[in-house]
């Protein structure tokens, strides 16, 4: 079930959005009703944050809320951290907030200008709901293994995760005490840490200082004991003699 949460301090506006979502749930471009419901409508960011769980959400957020309150972008940031699936739509009269969304890693689905003509705004929101639901369905249909994450600690109490499907390997950095490097398809992290603190049955140790995700290995050159993760052989790792057998066994599986 896709849960819709609406954050809007203007009650009339909030009711209109809720009504639109309910109608779109019943009558949409597919022959069936969507498996979604409006789970929360509030103008209070704190109430929304308390409501959040590791669940699937479509969040429709106003950016500018009352004084002394977090804005919609702060809330969106928290939704991204907690939710297992989230599509975020911002509705705001103030376009200047759009630039903040990349650096905060909010990745909104859409940013709708409140000042738009009402019929256009509704049409845009309906299209967004349809598209968000389609993405939710696609996410459900994808392989469960894709939803596995590797969690690492970037700072005191600050944990982040990356999808296992995008992880290549994790290695300890030479000549730097207690530092690890996490290398993935579109990500590279260098932080304090130890290999032994990263436990996952999907990973395999290939040397004293490196563990790999066998699912992302593209090629294994047995003669030179090199693992390659990309076509051009730019991202590679050396396997120790002792670990060759385990790796070959894992790759054969």
């Amino acid at each position, binding site marked *: 079930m896709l849960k819709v949460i609406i954050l809007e301090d203007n009650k009339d506006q909030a009711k209109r959005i809720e009504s639109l979502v309910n109608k779109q749930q019943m009558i949409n471009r597919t022959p069936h009703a969507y498996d979604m419901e409006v789970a929360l409508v509030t103008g209070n960011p704190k109430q929304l944050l308390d409501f959040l769980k590791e669940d699937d959400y479509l969040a429709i957020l106003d950016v500018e809320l009352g004084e002394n309150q977090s804005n919609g972008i*702060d809330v969106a940031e928290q939704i991204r951290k907690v939710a297992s699936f989230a599509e975020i739509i911002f509705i705001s009269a103030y376009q*200047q907030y759009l*630039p*903040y969304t*990349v*650096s*905060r*890693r909010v*990745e909104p689905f859409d940013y709708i200008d409140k000042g738009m003509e009402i019929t256009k705004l509704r049409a845009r929101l309906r299209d967004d709901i349809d598209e968000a639901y389609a993405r939710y369905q696609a996410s459900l249909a994808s392989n469960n293994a894709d939803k596995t994450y590797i969690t690492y600690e*970037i*700072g*005191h*109490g*600050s944990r*982040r995760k990356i999808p296992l499907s995008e992880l290549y390997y994790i290695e*300890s*950095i*030479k000549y*730097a*005490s*207690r*530092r690890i490097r996490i*290398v993935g398809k*579109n*990500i*590279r*992290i*260098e*932080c*304090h840490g*130890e*290999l*032994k603190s990263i436990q996952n049955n999907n990973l395999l140790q290939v040397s*004293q*200082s490196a563990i790999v995700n066998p699912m992302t290995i593209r090629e294994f050159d047995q003669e030179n004991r090199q693992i390659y993760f*990309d076509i051009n052989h*730019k*991202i590679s790792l050396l396997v120790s003699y002792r670990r060759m057998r385990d790796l070959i066994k894992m790759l054969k599986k």
Partner: protein
Amino acid sequence: MVRDLLIGFLILAIPMPVESLYLILIILYLWLVNREYNRHTLAIVIGVLMGSLYGLIDHCLNLLFIGSHKEPVVVGWLIPIGDLLISIIIGIIIAKFLKPKYQELFKSIKNTKSIWYGALLMLVVYEVVNIVADYEQVADTYYSLILAIDIAIISLGGIVITSFIHNYVNEQQQQQLILNYQEQLKYAKSMNEQFGQLRRDRHDMKNMLLNLQGELIDGNTDKANQLLSSFIQTKTSNHHYQEVDQSLEKLHISGLRNLIQVKAYQIIEQGSAVSIDIPKVINQLPGSEVKTARIVGILLDNALESIKKQDQAYVQIAILSRSDDCYDLVVANSLTEEIDINQIMQYEYSTKPGHQGIGLSNLNQLINQDDQYALIAEVKQRSIIMTCTIQGKVEIDAESDNP
């Protein structure tokens, strides 16, 4: 192969005054169909070798079985069977073991014509001996002598060819070593020059800073500012961009604020959009201020370089507080083409012509020298996000598994 086999049978069907001429005809045919020196050399060597082996096998069989038999015709089939068997065995040995090594060897030799001449000479000498023996019909009587001469020719030919190849390969290796050494000398010279330049620049900078210190001690901040501007070659802009200045109001660290302000102005003057997000007041950051400034400087310089050729580019800068002693410094910029995040973080990678590209790899060094710093580099569909996390002192555990 089938064609060659059929032609071979055809040649053998031609009546010849002496048997040894067949080898010459076959070698000639092979040369006519394929003028590759290395393959033909191999054909000559194998031809001579097989000719000798056939002669040896036939002679032995004749001596042991056929000559002493009452009806030699009955056991005469042993000769072709023997020849066939030896052909199969030698064929397997060559195809499985010798051919790959031979091919690799000839790849490294450019001048295979000389070796071919050597093989031809060996063939000629071999043929002369055997043709004379066949013609004078003394092959059976003096077989052992002829065999010894054949072995001597093959051995001598083999030794000459092998030593030629060996010397050639050695010479090539030595040439390569000399080239490598010359490259290394060139590199060492260039490194020396760069080091010298670095020492001079450092010396100049020290003197300039002393000069600056003097002006500051006397309270001449304007003069100090001018000196600095002329040294770092930036003009403190008379035009102020209000949105940038307002966004930086909550950052109370003067040096860092100035650095971000100058870079943000450069971004705007380049025609790109910039946004600065500092939600809470920041009086101090954990870690070293100098190191943090260097890191932010590198990140912003890279962002500036990255957006140079883009239309409608943007840069986003954020300093976000995760807790009282943990902050994220984020620099994100737009991208118009795909990039490999792992490649750009490598040492000396650069898209700028004539540049060594040490900025981002310097960043890695700075980050990894200090446990208070961490770096996350992510590439999204149309943007790249660099996040430097700075936190308060990290507690050190007694055990560690890092080598």
